[in-house]
C-alpha cells in the first residue's frame, strides 16, 4: 500500500476472557476470543473484517478503541502507543476514535433525547458550550440525513435505520479519524441497509474517515472496504485487498465462506462446496490450524503446526500450510 504511516497499527492483539469454574469459582479456562491478531489500517482506508459468529470480530474492534483492554499486544494510534494510557490520557485520544454498534435498539439510551445522545461525546470531552453543541447537533443530523427537529425526539420514535443514523451522528460528533463500525447494518432490512452503507461511504468521502468495518455480509464488506481481513476462531486467516481476496481467495476457509454465500442470481445456481461441521468453541480451539476440523484439504501437519499469516502475493497474506508449506514457511518468514 501507500508508504504513509498507518493510522492505527495493532500487533499481536490478544484477548482471553476468563471462564470461572470449579467449586471455588477460580479461573478454570479462558475463551481465546482473539489470539494474536495484527491489524493495520491506513488513513482514509476501510478495512473490512469478516468471519463467523464468535470469531472475535467485535472483540478486535473494541480493543482497537480500548473499550476492552487487550490481554496482550500493542496498539499504535496515529503514532502514539495507546495500550498503556491511563483513563485521563486516553480521553484525549478518544476524540479521534469512535465506534458504531450493531443493535439500533440497544445502542441508544431510551431515556435521552436525540439532542442529548448526540451531544454527549461533546459534553464528555468538553467541546463547545450548550448553544454551540445545539448547532453542531443540528448540523450532524443534517449530515446523516435527519432533520434538526428530530433533536427533541426520543429513540423509540425512530425506525431502525433512523436510529442507526443517530448512532452514526453520535460517532461523528467529535470528528474522529477512526470509526469502528461493528456490524452497523446487520440488523437492518436490505433496503435500509443500502441507505446506511451509502451514507457511511459518503461520510468517509466528506470527512476523510478511516473505517474498520465489521460484518458477516461479504457482499457489503466488498462494497465498502479497501482491504478485507478474514477471521476464524480468534485468528486472522487471510488479509488482502478486496478485489484480490474475492477474486483469488487462498485460504480454504475464505473459499468456503465465499462459496457458502448464495449468489443473488438465479442463473448462476451452482452446486456449492459446503464445508461440514460446526464452529469449534473458542474455549477449546483445535490444535494446529484452527480450521483443520472443517478443512476439506486437511493434512497431518495442519493438526500439529499452527500456520503463520504470511505474505504471498503483494499485500496478500494467508495463514495456511497449503499456501505456505511449513518447510518453506520458515525461510519466507525470514525474508518478510
Amino acid at each position, binding site marked *: 500500500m501507500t508508504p504513509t504511516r498507518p493510522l492505527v497499527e495493532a500487533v499481536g492483539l490478544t484477548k482471553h476472557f476468563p*471462564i470461572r469454574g470449579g467449586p*471455588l*469459582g477460580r479461573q478454570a479456562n479462558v475463551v481465546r476470543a482473539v489470539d494474536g491478531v495484527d491489524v493495520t489500517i491506513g488513513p482514509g482506508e476501510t478495512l473490512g473484517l469478516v468471519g463467523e459468529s464468535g470469531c472475535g470480530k467485535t472483540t478486535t474492534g473494541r480493543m482497537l478503541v480500548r473499550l476492552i483492554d487487550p490481554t496482550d499486544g500493542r496498539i499504535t494510534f496515529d503514532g502514539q502507543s495507546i495500550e498503556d494510557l491511563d483513563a485521563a490520557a486516553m480521553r484525549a485520544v478518544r476524540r479521534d476514535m469512535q465506534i458504531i454498534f450493531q443493535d439500533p435498539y440497544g445502542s441508544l439510551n431510551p431515556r435521552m433525547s436525540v439532542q442529548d445522545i448526540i451531544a454527549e461525546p461533546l459534553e464528555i470531552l468538553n467541546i463547545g458550550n450548550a448553544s454551540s453543541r445545539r448547532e453542531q447537533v443540528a448540523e450532524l443530523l443534517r449530515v446523516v440525513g435527519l432533520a434538526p427537529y428530530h433533536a427533541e425526539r426520543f429513540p423509540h420514535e425512530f425506525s431502525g435505520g433512523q436510529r442507526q443514523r443517530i448512532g452514526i451522528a453520535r460517532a461523528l460528533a467529535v470528528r474522529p479519524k477512526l470509526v469502528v463500525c461493528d456490524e452497523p447494518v446487520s440488523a437492518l432490512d436490505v433496503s435500509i441497509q443500502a441507505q446506511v452503507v451509502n451514507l457511511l461511504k459518503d461520510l468517509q468521502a466528506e470527512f476523510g474517515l478511516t473505517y474498520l468495518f465489521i460484518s458477516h455480509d461479504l457482499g457489503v464488506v466488498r462494497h465498502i472496504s479497501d482491504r478485507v481481513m478474514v477471521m476464524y476462531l480468534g485468528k486472522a486467516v487471510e488479509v488482502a485487498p478486496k478485489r484480490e481476496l474475492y477474486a483469488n481467495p487462498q485460504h480454504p476457509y475464505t473459499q468456503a465462506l465465499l462459496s457458502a454465500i448464495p449468489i443473488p442470481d438465479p442463473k448462476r445456481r451452482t452446486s456449492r462446496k459446503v464445508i461440514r461441521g460446526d464452529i469449534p468453541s473458542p474455549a477449546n480451539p483445535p490444535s494446529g490450524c484452527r480450521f483443520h476440523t472443517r478443512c476439506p484439504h486437511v493434512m497431518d501437519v495442519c493438526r500439529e503446526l499452527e500456520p503463520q499469516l504470511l505474505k504471498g502475493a503483494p499485500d496478500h497474506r494467508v495463514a495456511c500450510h497449503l499456501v505456505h508449506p511449513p518447510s518453506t514457511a520458515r525461510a519466507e518468514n525470514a525474508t518478510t
Partner: protein
Amino acid sequence: MIAYIIRRLLYVIPVLLIISLISFSLMQLVPGDPAIVVAGTSASNEEIERVREQLGLNQPFHVQLLTWYANLFRGDLGTSFLLGRDVVEVTLERLPVSLSIAIYALVLTLIFGIMLGIIAALRQNSWVDQAVMTVALIGVSLPNFWLGLILIVIFAVELGWLPTAGYVPFTEDIVGWLRSTTLPAVSLAMLQMGLLARITRSTMLEVLRQDYIRTARAKGLPEHVVVGKHALKNVMIPVITVIGIIFSVLLSGSVVIETIFSIPGVGSLLGSAILRRDYPVIQGGLLLVATMLLLLNLVIDVLYAYFDSRVRYDRD
C-alpha cells in the same frame, strides 16, 4: 453439577457468618435486662446482679460474642433464660409445629395458587380470569393477623366447625391436626396464594407466548398436551424458585398467627422470647430459622438447576 452444588455450599458460609453476626449483635442493642426477668419482678438489685453474673451478661461485648461463637461451633446455642432449657432443643422441638403448619400452608398455596393462576391464564381476559385475579388481588391485600381474627370468629366461634386455638401434633391425630391447623394455615396462605396465582398467571402467559409453544402447536399436538406438558413444565421452573421465598414468608407470618391461634411453634417462641428478652433463644432461634431457610433455598436452587437444563452452572 457437583461443582455447582459445592460452590453454592461455599457461598453459604459467608452468608451464615453474617447471619450469625446479625442475630447476635441485634439483641445486644435491646434495652431491658434479662437478668431481671430471670430473677423475678420482686427480686432485689443484688439478686439481679447475681443472676447477671451467672448468665455472663456482665462480660464485655466481644467476650460474649466470642464465647457465643465458640459454643456455636460445638452446636451449643446456650440455655434459654426463661425456659431453662437448651436453645437448640427447644427450637428443634418447636420447629416441627411451625413447619407442619407452614408446609400445610405451602401446599394450600401451591395447589390453589398454581391452579388459579393457570385457569386465569388459559381464560385470559374472560370473566373467569377477572374473577380469579380479583380474588388473588384481595388475597394479596388482606393482613393475615386480621384475617386470622375474622376466621376465628366465623369458623370457630359462630359456626363451630374448627377449634379456636391450640395445636394437635399430626403424629398423634391426623384429623385433630388438620382441624387445629386449617385456620392458621389458611390465614397464612391467603396472601401467598394470591401472589403465586399472579406469578403463575403471568409466567403462564409469558410461556404461552414462547416460540416453542408455537412449535408444539405446529406439530399438531392437542391443546391439553401443549399446555399440560410443554407449557406447564416451563411454568413450574420459575415457580419452584419462589417456593423458598414463599416458605420464608409463611414462617415469618407464624409469629403473629401462632400468637393468635395459641400454637406452640417457633414463631410464638421467638415472638415471646423477644418480648421477654430471652437473648439465647432470640439469637439461636433466629440463627436456626435463617440457616434453615438458607439451606432450603440452596436445595431449591440445586433442584432448579437439576430441573432446568437451561441453567448455566458456571454462572452465579
